[in-house]
């Protein structure tokens, strides 16, 4: 649908291992994806699946173990410190917890001015105050709050500060790491609407990390499902909600409680919990919980392949389960 748009971010075989005393923890394991300009990629999965690590690795908050990252046509896989500083103008992040991501000793205007000062964006204090005022206006913070401190504000307003800080340098791309998870639903909806408005106005590209399936459908163009460091399914949002092909995605989506009476469909309660991501063997990481697992699944890691046009799945049995001709 957006064939003419240029690719903003492309990631190839991106891998991030953490060293632990018991071996390598495969937080992100050979992940590939791309996001077009002005679009949103939703990354979903449960805690510990590597979605946050992926977002952080993409913008060099973690250094990758291997793989390639292209941003806006440039290879940014390896960057020096000065290059990284320049890069951060264009790539920003909104953090999950508005309670711990803001310095409690800085006022709202100081918090929003900080990125502008670091990048020497303004010539004098008048201009700075003006820019801060504009940003506060953009994210819907009343001017009277400029001297307030984070502890005086509620979660929704704090998250608006987080959004204003991310927008301060006019970035092209923002990694949003669970930006609304800590908020009440009525406030959550306000922030989601704000982020959508900003995207339309400024042609922003988002990587939206969340565990909330309804939110991800609402905001994303494409959706990637992760399980224990691996991408297990990738498709555009409409396709993903029309048919889920990977057994994990099926279970994940059927587990979401729907606020309608009798919406409870067949329960696909999957047994067990996440296995350890430390030194995983050559097997499908979902095999131990999968109702369809066979011999093959325990001996070979499935690759992400295009099963239906535009719909990628990493599962040995995907055709068998879904009755798709090879």
């Amino acid at each position, binding site marked *: 649908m957006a064939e003419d748009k240029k690719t903003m971010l492309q990631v190839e075989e991106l891998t991030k291992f953490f060293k632990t005393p018991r071996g390598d923890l495969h937080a992100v394991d050979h992940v590939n994806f791309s996001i077009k300009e002005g679009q949103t990629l939703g990354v979903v999965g*449960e805690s510990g699946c590597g979605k946050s690590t992926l977002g952080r690795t993409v913008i060099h908050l973690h250094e990758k173990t291997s793989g390639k990252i292209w941003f806006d046509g440039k290879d940014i896989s390896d960057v020096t410190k000065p290059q990284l500083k320049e890069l951060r103008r264009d790539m920003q992040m909104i953090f999950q917890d508005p309670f711990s991501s803001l310095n409690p000793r800085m006022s709202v205007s100081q918090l929003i001015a900080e990125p502008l000062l670091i990048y020497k964006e303004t010539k004098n204090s008048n201009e700075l105050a003006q820019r801060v005022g504009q940003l506060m206006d953009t994210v819907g913070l009343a001017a009277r709050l400029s001297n307030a401190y984070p502890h005086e504000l509620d979660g929704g307003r704090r998250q608006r500060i987080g959004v204003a800080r991310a927008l301060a340098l006019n970035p092209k791309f923002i990694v949003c790491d669970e930006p609304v998870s800590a908020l009440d639903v009525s*406030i959550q909806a306000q922030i989601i609407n704000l982020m959508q408005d900003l995207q339309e106005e400024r042609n922003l590209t988002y990587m939206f990390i969340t565990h909330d399936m309804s939110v991800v459908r609402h905001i994303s163009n494409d959706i990637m499902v992760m399980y224990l460091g691996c991408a297990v399914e990738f498709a555009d949002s409409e396709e993903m909600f029309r048919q889920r092909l990977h057994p994990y995605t099926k279970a*994940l989506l059927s*587990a979401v*409680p729907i*606020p309608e*009476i009798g919406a409870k469909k067949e329960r696909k*309660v999957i047994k067990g919990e*996440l296995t350890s991501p430390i030194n995983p063997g050559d097997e499908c990481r979902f095999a131990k919980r999968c109702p369809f697992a066979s011999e093959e699944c325990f001996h070979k890691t499935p690759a992400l392949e295009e099963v239906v046009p535009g719909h990628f799945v990493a599962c040995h049995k995907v055709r068998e389960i879904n009755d798709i001709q090879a």
Partner: protein
Amino acid sequence: MANNILEIKDLTIHYVTDQETVKAVNGISLQIAEGESLGLVGETGAGKTTTALGIMRLVPDPPGRVIGGEIIYKGEDLMKKSEHEMRSIRGHQISMIFQDPMTALNPVETVGYQIAEVIRLHQNLSKRDAELKAMEMMELVGIEGARAGEYPHQFSGGMKQRIVIAMALACDPSLLLADEPTTALDVTIQEQVLDLIDNLKKQFNTSMLLITHDLGIVAEVCDKVAIMYAGEIVEYGTLEHIYNNTSHPYTQGLFGSIPNFNSKTHRLKPIKGLMPDPANLPDGCVFADRCPHAKDECRSGKLVTKEIEPGHLVRCRLFE
């Protein structure tokens, strides 16, 4: 109509400090029938947890103070019970599942010991028998009894919550207060825990007060719903009443704020503004400032709760 196991009448709980009075719960009334599940839905600070603590008589005093009201459990007013009598009710007849399993368990005792502790306190069993019963309870919630000798940190979040559930159900309570039992868990684990609670509830015919902010969970497990806002029950009814004939503007706002899972909506319709500070509640309707239908008369006088159809109560001037 089944007998009401719990009936709350006009319960008011305030937190009083030198500087201010936080009006957490303001004259709420609720009924839970035997074997029934009531979902208590609201946002942070609506007074849901205070209500549950009030039922258990566990509101920290000071600063918490129960200003008035009755809590009738099986025909007896809990407010009139002595602390000693309450101790034999808590954990035995009424038990509570807390939101965060990580902090509800004692990190330096084995889980088996902690479950057995409840059993020994309320039932006349020897230490050995209590431990055996504890292992049985663990099996019931799907954890090997052999793991009774392990400590909480050796279990995952979902399993810890199962242990908390095992503890709550160990003495076969007739009323279970579950305070956001799955909020700290992932969806697939949440599904497992909800399934478990649902099955056990049917098996033991336990009544339940489920506190949550998730209308999806309520639709799945509850029979009746109470929507709480700024210390008041603004709407109360059966699932059909609340989901298919949503009447209070706040409840409508809640539904409008949730992205639809089954079809793509372009814009959400959030409720504008914020919940009022419970230390400084407005006159008249507490929701008036955020309400799209608010008129001048909403901002003064006392509101009455109106029954707009049998069993469906709404506290709003639009219906008076």
